[in-house]
């Protein structure tokens, strides 16, 4: 490792970021060294402590630097509604887009047996305990609409139903402002099947 020049080490390290190939990594490295050493220093510090200190919430498994995340700790949130999502980014997206006032549970992926991801890899046991032990009345499924997301939704729905929770699923269909002609047939079929009375 020490034989590789530091500059090359930096470029290689930057490539762990999504979407960063050798060219962008080189550009970033030169930018930091030539124009913004202060920014680079700050990035290094924050990155080091983030990687060190941010873990998963012991209740909902989203990312947090505390034992229990800000949402789970908030007494104003409605504890009877639990929204099940795949990733911490989904929590962020729903928080920004909706007025949802319940709590979340982050699976950390979706059931994908062909990728080696089964119920055990997704914290389903923790979810079961959560649904058994607490005052959750309704479970909202907000998984993706891929085949794996569907399988995950079904698995959670079965579990929640057997534990006496009401189960709902977020609607999916034609995007707002979307012209039917350009919507793919799978989405259109889904939207058509999920039509509701107006």
């Amino acid at each position, binding site marked *: 490792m020490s034989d590789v020049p530091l500059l090359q080490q930096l470029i290689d390290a930057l490539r762990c970021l*999504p*979407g960063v190939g050798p060219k962008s990594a080189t550009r970033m490295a030169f930018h930091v060294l030539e124009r913004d050493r202060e920014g680079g220093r700050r990035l290094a510090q924050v990155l080091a402590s983030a990687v060190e200190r941010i873990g998963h919430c012991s209740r909902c498994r989203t990312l947090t630097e505390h034992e229990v995340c800000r949402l789970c700790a908030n007494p104003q949130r409605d504890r009877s509604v639990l929204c099940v999502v795949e990733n911490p980014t989904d929590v962020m997206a729903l928080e920004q887009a909706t007025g949802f006032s319940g709590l979340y549970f982050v699976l950390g992926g979706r*059931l994908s*047996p*062909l*990728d*080696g*991801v*089964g*119920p*055990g890899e997704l914290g389903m046991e923790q979810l079961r305990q959560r649904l058994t032990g607490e005052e959750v009345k309704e479970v909202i499924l907000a998984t993706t609409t*891929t*085949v794996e997301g*569907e*399988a995950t939704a*079904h*698995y959670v729905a079965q579990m929640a139903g057997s534990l006496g929770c009401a189960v709902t699923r977020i609607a999916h269909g034609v995007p707002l402002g979307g012209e039917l002609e350009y919507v*793919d*047939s*799978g*989405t259109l*079929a889904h939207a058509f*099947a999920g039509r509701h009375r107006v």
Partner: protein
Amino acid sequence: MQEHTLQPAYVLHVRRFRETSLVVELLGASQGRCAALAKGALGSRRAWGNQLQPFTPLLLAWRGRGELPLLTACETAAPAHRLNDRALYCGLYVNELILRLCERDDPHSGLFPTYVGCIDALASVSPENAALEPVLRAFELDLLDELGLGMQLRLDQDGEPIDPGRRYDYLPDQGAVLLRDARGGFSGGTLLGLADGGLEGPEQRREARTLMRRVLDVHLGGRALKSRELFQ
């Protein structure tokens, strides 16, 4: 692989590759199990990501040779089969079986129609074990036949016809062995029901499931199927 015109195919599995591309494991009507690279499928240029989903009848074209030819066209041939509830688990199980047991680029010409029939059936029967299990058993038998690992379920090891009233052990490498004892093993009725696609009642279904699992496990080389965990 030569350049192909649009061909019927199903996606068995999709895996992210780099930022916007997908490696797609396929079952093609004439190619059998194969794989292709869908470059930029998740990008804005080609929105194939939504279409390249399992259980959707597709028409695909690809170009190039070697490990990973390039997908060049993708159309939906018919609406996706709606696999509901447990039927979806069954579909994932079937896909995993193919990926685990079939080698890439072995044509297995009979496999595609068998697969289509299986997915059709999973989508149309009611998603309960009593209806789904016979569909899976039939597929498992056909798959083994296709791989040259077919089971002899009408004759025992000595060439005698299976007696529905007696019990047999089944050894994956030797076939059915008549048991002196009236306990243990599998009933002849289960073996014949499996062969005829006419399993009757929960007991025969349970025996058939145990038998097929035992035989498949031998061919899977001891590595368990992950999709089985969904059924627990």
